[in-house]
């Protein structure tokens, strides 16, 4: 009988910590009443902080389970980013739960399990890991979207997301089987080695297209974006805030790793797909958002557009491009979380939560600080200098120009100008329209998130050097 040693578990320490926290908190929640939910949320945040510490302690550049799981600089940076996003989303629900009957203890547990899935996606170096990580992450989110089960909108959004998500998983799996069949490998470096002569067989191209379709669904790139507005609108607002931030980071990281680790030798083949996805997303994100009246739907189209801009960096296929993607996702996540802190603060005493853009009318006169921070964030999302969003776009477009993708960069700049229109419209409504009734005071944690995000968009240059050097170091993992 041959004896096989269990591979090293040390690189998995952050995931193990998070999974254990999720299981223990699940038991704690099941045996206590609803009063315990805020405590469980706080413990979940503690667990995420523990996982972040564990990530900082692991040494980069190791693989385990025969190369199926990789911890490199890229994985560490994006895991920390995604975990911060998850922690802030949980933090923002605590106040919301108090006045909106959102006291299910399962919610933070589902977010923790989803965070484990995101970490698996970011570290996956094997097609099986890609699929399992994606499923773990998405299944937890499907449940979270429908968690408000007495609301038709929430359950409809959950069902829609689930059905379309299952379809995209099917496409992804089909692509994976084709790639396995034609290359004989599921581990990324092995796939790259088989493809190293540069010409891929038709089967591999087919598989690549299917895999990219599945991944494009997860980052909500056009033409796989149909679920986004409905799910964003139907899901409870804190869930939308989570959905728009951390999973997007994880999915974009996975997208980057798949194309750069596994399909690097056939980069001309995937570049044209990425360019197509990117142009379509930017244009649709710019034009479809114009007619929206619901702020969450507006954010949905905005996030579709932003994924298009991030994909510009990927299309460049260069170290600068990957740096651009990493920087873009960092800035996108912080700005989006700040924006959702504002949206979660849109609550009136008589009407409850409101979501219409017209409800923001005259905000500058009723709540000047909230209006100021919101304006900063929207200007930043629009990419207007000297705010941080401009530099995010600047880096990806610069990478595209350097890679001789000048038409792509021009389309990007033009659609960014169009998208500025709808951000400015929201600002105009806040600044110049007649004021509506005052919103209820925001919870302390929302105010903190909003203040930090607003300050970041203005004073980013204080932390710019460390972010840029960390992103550059992360991008170097592939080259």
């Amino acid at each position, binding site marked *: 009988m041959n004896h096989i040693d269990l591979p090293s578990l040390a690189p998995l320490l952050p995931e193990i910590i998070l999974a254990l926290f999720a299981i223990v908190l699940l038991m704690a929640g099941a045996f206590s009443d609803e009063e315990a939910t805020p405590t469980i949320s706080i413990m979940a945040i503690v667990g995420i902080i523990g996982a972040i510490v564990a990530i900082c302690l692991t040494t980069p550049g190791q693989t385990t389970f025969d190369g199926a799981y990789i911890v490199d600089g890229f994985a560490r940076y994006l895991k920390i980013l995604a975990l911060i996003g998850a922690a802030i989303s949980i933090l923002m629900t605590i106040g919301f739960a108090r006045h909106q009957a959102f006291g299910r203890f399962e919610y933070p547990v589902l977010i923790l399990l989803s965070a484990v899935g995101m970490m698996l996606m970011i570290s996956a170096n094997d097609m099986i890991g890609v699929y399992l990580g994606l499923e773990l992450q998405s299944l937890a989110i499907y449940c979270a979207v429908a*968690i408000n089960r007495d609301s038709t909108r929430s359950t409809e959004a959950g069902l829609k997301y689930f059905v379309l998500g299952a379809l995209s998983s099917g496409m992804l799996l089909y692509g994976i089987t084709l790639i396995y069949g034609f290359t*004989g490998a599921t581990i990324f470096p092995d796939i790259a080695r088989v493809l190293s002569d540069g010409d891929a067989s038709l089967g591999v191209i087919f598989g690549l297209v299917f895999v990219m379709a599945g991944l494009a669904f997860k980052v909500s790139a056009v033409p796989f974006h149909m679920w986004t507005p409905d799910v964003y609108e139907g899901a409870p607002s804190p869930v939308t805030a989570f959905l728009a931030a951390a999973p997007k980071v994880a999915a974009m990281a996975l997208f980057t790793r798949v194309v750069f680790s596994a399909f690097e030798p056939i980069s001309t083949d995937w570049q044209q797909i990425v360019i197509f996805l990117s142009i379509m997303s930017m244009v649709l994100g710019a034009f479809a958002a114009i007619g929206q009246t619901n702020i969450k739907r507006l954010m949905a189209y905005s996030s579709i557009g932003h994924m298009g801009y991030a994909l510009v960096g990927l299309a460049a296929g260069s170290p600068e491009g990957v740096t651009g993607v990493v920087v873009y996702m960092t800035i996108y996540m912080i700005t989006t979380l700040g924006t959702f802190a504002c949206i979660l603060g849109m609550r009136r005493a008589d009407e409850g939560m409101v979501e219409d853009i017209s409800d923001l009318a005259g905000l500058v006169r009723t709540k000047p600080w909230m209006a100021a921070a919101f304006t900063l964030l929207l200007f930043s999302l629009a990419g207007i200098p000297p705010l941080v969003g401009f530099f995010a776009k600047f880096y990806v477009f610069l990478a595209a120009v350097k890679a001789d993708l000048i038409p792509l960069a021009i389309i990007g700049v033009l659609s960014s100008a169009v998208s500025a229109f709808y951000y400015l419209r929201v600002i105009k409504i806040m600044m110049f329209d007649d004021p509506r009734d005052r919103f209820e005071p925001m919870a302390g944690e929302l105010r903190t998130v909003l203040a930090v995000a607003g300050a970041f968009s203005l004073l980013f240059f204080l932390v710019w050097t460390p972010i840029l050097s960390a992103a550059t170091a992360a991008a170097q993992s592939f080259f």
Partner: protein
Amino acid sequence: MTIASLFFYLFAVVLLASALMVISSRNPVHSVLFLILAFLNGAGIFMLTGAEFLALILIVVYVGAVLVLFLFVVMMLDVDFAQLRQGFMQYLPVGALVGIVLLVELILVLGAYTLAPAVAEHVVVPIPPPSEVSNTEALGLVLYTRYAFYFQVCGLILLVAMVGAIVLTLRHQANAKRQNVAAQVNRSVEDSVEVRDVASGRGLQL
């Protein structure tokens, strides 16, 4: 060898016939029963090719669990299949046309298909040759070592599914009566039985 091919044809014919019955029988319960027959014969074919683990898993999981669940669903939900089939003849010409076009395309594509020579080079043998270990043993050798991590992740996914099902459907009913074993055991004779003298013809005032 002849016995093996005899069994192959037996299984294959029954499999195809029962698969045809699944889609053509009018009663949905019959469809499910024929599906069970189809799976059992499929398992037989797997067994003939030496994939005994897959064969047994097919029987245990699909026949033992999934199809029994199907049967429950078919019996509990009152689906009017006759109504679903309405308009079948109306859509038949277009459906048949699409089917024929697809078939012709498939024949054209697959007829010209040759396996790329590179594929044969890359085919890997992840497990020891079947002559050394049985495939159940070979799967066990990698499932709990090399793929132990993925095995655990599957466990987490199932945990999410369980949590999700409870979150989305379980409702605590306030007036539901539950059995409290401790309270039942702790009852004593004094507080549950009372002995009264009943005078004859008078009855008892409680």
